[in-house]
């Protein structure tokens, strides 16, 4: 069992480096220069631009830039005056030591900017995930219980439509209906900005209703199908037939034998699901002007703020890798068949 987990942890390491290399390559191949984005004024002279490039380390060969980004450059001297001799000690500590560099546009550590946005995204994502899991599992079990009846059909239709409807469009529709026409729910942001005073739970919840509903719909759609399939699979197993054969009531068979085994894969799916929370709301955050990670990365992409873009990608990927590992651990805990191996 520990061997299995150990192997999974070791496998995550090359994946992590793959993520850093790939995101670095994409940024590297980008036309346009971040410095040019800040100094587009024709009056800025070449000396200033060169100085800026050297300070950001953009004059270095790509491989060295990558190394600096990964492990920092405080072990070497940086040449800031352009005479080919390094004289200023490097300041960066690198990704592996928790330093993602500074945002070019906002001139603040990327780590701080991301840390600032994470709670907003988590609030949205975790609420949607919880509702999605509860509703999805309940609907999935119901669909399996009432297999091939109208209940099953109705749940299938909900799930198919929930998958096919474009999230941003549903968000727009809900804004039109509940925000503009009926005017009963706020349509953007996390709280009423004109209100004075501290945190108001009712206000915060009202802002969450629409985005959380849209986000959870995808989970409901996916999980109700997934749960249904798992349950139907389990119901065909021999031990379920045995349970029926020894005269157990349907209710007991369902609760004690089918549900436990059928929901096992669903439970382990929670790990990767948590991993996608940080990145899962990009479009919805844009629709509802929600100040989370998604809006951060969209703004960063548009202003070509590469350190911020790469930082967001890496953090979101680390979350995902951690989520997958979490689900491996949960599998081992929940499924004795693996534990005994």
């Amino acid at each position, binding site marked *: 069992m520990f061997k299995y987990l150990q192997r999974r942890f070791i496998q995550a390491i*090359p994946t992590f480096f*793959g993520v850093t290399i*790939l995101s670095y390559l994409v940024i590297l*191949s980008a036309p346009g220069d971040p410095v040019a984005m800040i100094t587009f004024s024709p009056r800025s002279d070449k000396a200033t631009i060169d100085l800026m490039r050297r300070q950001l380390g953009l004059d270095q060969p790509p491989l060295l830039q990558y190394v600096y980004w990964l492990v920092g450059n405080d072990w070497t001297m940086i040449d800031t005056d352009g005479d080919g001799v390094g004289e200023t000690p490097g300041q960066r500590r690198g990704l592996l030591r928790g330093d993602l560099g500074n945002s070019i546009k906002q001139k603040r550590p990327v780590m701080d900017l991301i840390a600032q946005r994470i709670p907003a995204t988590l609030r949205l994502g975790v609420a949607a995930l919880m509702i999605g899991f509860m509703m999805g599992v309940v609907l999935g079990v119901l669909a399996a219980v009432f297999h091939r009846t109208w209940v099953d059909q109705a749940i299938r239709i909900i799930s198919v439509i929930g998958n*096919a409807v474009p999230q*941003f469009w549903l968000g727009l529709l809900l804004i039109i209906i509940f925000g503009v026409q009926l005017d009963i729910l706020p349509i953007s942001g996390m709280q009423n900005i004109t209100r004075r005073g501290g945190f108001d739970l009712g206000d915060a919840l009202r802002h969450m209703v629409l985005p959380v509903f849209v986000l959870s719909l995808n989970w409901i759609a996916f999980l109700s199908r997934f749960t249904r399939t798992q349950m139907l699979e389990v119901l065909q197993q021999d031990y379920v037939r045995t349970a029926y054969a020894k005269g157990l009531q349907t209710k007991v068979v369902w609760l004690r034998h089918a549900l436990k085994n059928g929901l096992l894969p669903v439970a382990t799916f929670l790990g990767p699901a948590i991993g996608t929370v940080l990145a899962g709301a990009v*479009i919805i955050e844009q629709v509802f002007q929600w100040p989370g990670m998604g809006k951060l990365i969209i703004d960063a992409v548009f202003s070509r703020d590469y350190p911020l873009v790469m930082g967001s*990608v890496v953090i*979101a990927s680390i979350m995902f890798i951690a989520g*997958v590992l979490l689900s491996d651990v949960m599998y081992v805990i929940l499924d004795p068949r693996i534990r005994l191996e």
Partner: protein
Amino acid sequence: MRQSRSFWRDALAFILRDRLTIFAISVLAVATIVCMGSPLVIENALNLDVNETSVPNRFMQPGQDGYPLGTDQLGRDQFLRLIYGGRVSLTIAYLASVLTVFIGITLGMLAGYYGRGVDDLISWGVNTLSAIPPLFLLLIASAVWEPSTEVLIIVLAALGWVGTSRLVRGEVLSLKERDYVLAARALGASDFRIVVSHILPNVFSIVMVTMTIIAGNLILIESGLSYLGVGIQPPTPTWGNMLTDSRSYFVTGVHLVFTPGILIMITVLCFYLVGDGLRDALDPRRYQK
């Protein structure tokens, strides 16, 4: 006694009896023909220009003044724009799904068949690509390259092959141990021949289902990217970028929000339904029931 038919003919017969799938296929066919064909008629026979703006005719309601679906904030004909937008969305869905699946099959078969180093390398790529949130990568890639339709198709395929490859790899792993592969090898068939004529036909049916689902997903992804403003750039209309500015006309032009979304939803729904139908038709276990 049951008449003996080939696997594919039997699947075809099954689909022909499946009314929902036939309906979805017909809707897609009609949409494709209209979107691909009518721009020719519109430009040459009716002499209309989809990008023609007209200030006095802004925010016309549907049906008003001969505009069947009204006009947008620049006075452009919404109906024409929907047709042109559909042409872009459907082209991307068809071509990118084929390309995605092609890359996925090729890499998946290489990984599954050769194993060892090849498998390690490809699996590393798969794990890496699937660890990065897909929308983040697409967002960066399309912001960085400001894609034309062709570039967007390549980008979508280059980032989307992972699932297919994983699926194919798993299938090949089990298929290559089968007796008929062993027999082919004993007869001296080359690797290429074994892969192409013995393994490929057996993964093809599963891949066809995936391809249909991918096509539906691609329409959603493309519309999302366009909505965010990083997909196909205006004035070329797509169903997604027609909604980009919709916030600013929630009051004056609500009709502009409805139509693109409904078309996206119907198209995606039809691709999913066809995928479901194909899955049932191509499922070998169907015979046992």
